[in-house]
């Protein structure tokens, strides 16, 4: 398998795995974790109201664990899918990397190895902790994740070196260019992806301008209120402040998730438009996967935004949108799997 196909296959596999992990995380961990964090904060505030400093410390010991659990799962999802995007990107620039094909394949293998090490290491941070670690705050799982990041940087530096040689005029001997035929699937993915990215940028700018600073001020204000209510031993006031804090956390989470997901799906659509020549399926099936992909790409971020107003119904539809994207990607992956060896056979014939 050439470096290009290795990166395309590995890239889509990483994205599918990262998205499946994200869907599972959203359904089985995210909401439950958020609820438990609220309960723990409530316990800390009640302990403070009872003048029980040890109770506060106990409550926060479990908050730290909950936040770490949540944070590492989000990071696993993000880093795995992003590494997949980068792998697809590298597949596209292979025709412009002036290195011997064997070295390009090694670089691709190293990149994919780093792409697995990094998210797996991040996922394990919460479970491995500081066990057997010689460091004060960094555990072995963090070391694995950081080593994965370092491997990615080295592989990327190798690709940049090859591209630099191409720019300096060195000919590329291996890997035919990824030819674009301007098919319906390619054009729809290209234009649909650009629109999704632009929408995501506009929403991000709107969020930064009108929501980010007020939300940051609101968080400090709510915490101050919570401390005052705990100091006054007002149980009802504590509950109201905790509810406000939970509501604010949810508002921040859905805004950021909608912004990042619509841009990432847009980028993925752009990338998938380039790999369509490698999807060895009939035009009708290619169209079906493209429509399914774009439908899911719109459904997920829009319904994530609607979660605050419509609750679990919108959350369920958003999860279904994510599943549509995953199914479409698996469909395309099957097409790429069918392609295996065809290009090499044609080239050597």
């Amino acid at each position, binding site marked *: 398998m050439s470096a290009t196909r290795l990166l395309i296959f590995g890239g889509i596999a990483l994205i599918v795995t990262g998205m499946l992990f994200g869907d599972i995380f959203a359904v089985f961990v995210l909401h439950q974790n958020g609820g438990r964090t609220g309960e723990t904060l409530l316990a*800390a*505030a009640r*302990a*403070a*109201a009872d*003048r*029980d*400093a040890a*109770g*506060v410390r106990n*409550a*926060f010991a479990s*908050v730290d664990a909950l*936040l*770490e659990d949540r*944070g590492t799962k989000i990071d696993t999802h*993000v880093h795995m899918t*992003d590494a997949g*995007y*980068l792998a697809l*990107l590298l597949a*596209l*620039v292979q025709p*412009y990397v002036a290195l011997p094909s064997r070295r390009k394949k090694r670089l691709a293998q190293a990149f994919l190895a780093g792409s697995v090490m990094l998210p797996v290491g991040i996922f394990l941070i919460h479970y491995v902790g500081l066990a057997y670690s010689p460091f004060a*705050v*960094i555990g072995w799982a*963090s070391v694995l*994740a*950081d080593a994965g*990041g*370092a491997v990615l*940087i080295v592989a*990327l530096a190798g*690709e*940049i070196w090859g*591209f630099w040689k191409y*720019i300096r005029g060195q000919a590329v001997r291996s890997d035919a260019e990824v030819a*674009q035929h301007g098919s319906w699937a390619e054009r729809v993915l*290209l234009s649909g992806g*650009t*629109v999704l990215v*632009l929408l995501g*940028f506009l929403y*991000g*700018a709107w969020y*930064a301008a009108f929501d980010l600073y007020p939300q*940051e001020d609101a*968080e*400090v204000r709510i*915490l*101050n209120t919570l*401390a005052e209510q*705990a*100091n006054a031993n007002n149980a009802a006031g504590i509950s109201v402040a905790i509810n406000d804090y939970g509501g604010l956390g949810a508002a921040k989470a859905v805004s950021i998730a909608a912004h*990042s997901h619509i*841009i*990432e799906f847009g*980028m993925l659509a*752009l990338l998938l438009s*380039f790999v369509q020549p490698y999807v060895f399926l009939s035009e009708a099936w290619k169209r079906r996967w493209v429509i399914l992909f774009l439908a899911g790409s719109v459904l997920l971020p829009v319904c994530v935004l609607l979660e605050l107003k419509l609750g679990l119904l919108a959350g369920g539809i958003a999860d279904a949108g994510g599943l549509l994207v995953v199914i479409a990607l698996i469909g395309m992956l099957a097409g790429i799997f069918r392609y295996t060896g065809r290009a090499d056979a044609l080239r050597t014939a």
Partner: protein
Amino acid sequence: MNGSGKLLVLGGAVLAAFGMLYGLHYALLVEHQTLDRMGNSLAQTFVSVANQNPKQAHTAIKTYGATRYDYVRQVDAHSHWGGLAMLMIVLGIVFDKLAFTENFRRGLAAALLTGSTLFPAAVLLQTADRTAMLGSVLAVLGSALVMVALAGVAWGFLREPA
């Protein structure tokens, strides 16, 4: 690949590598300590309330707010550098399909690259001095540059080639 495309691909790759190096440095030397500081200041708030010291509680909340402000922007800078770098590389590959002159394409590529470098750097600058407006102004300029250039790219894709 034309000159403007090469500029975007090479610039994007360098930006991606830089974003990763920043992420690696941040994860190794800053993130754990920042998260610890956030957790500790939040816990300190309620311990202070339990010890009937509301003034210290408010100081702890202030520390939490300031630490979180920095944390959000440091993570944002890392993720935006990486994301924008990928966009640069993708667009660089198809930049010769834009129905503009090469000079105009070069201008668009330079604007995309400048905005993509400037915007996350300006977000990071906001953590250096929260009261100074320079970081915010540069962030608005950088993001506007990217969006206007991207709108130009979309227009170029839509136009019929001459």
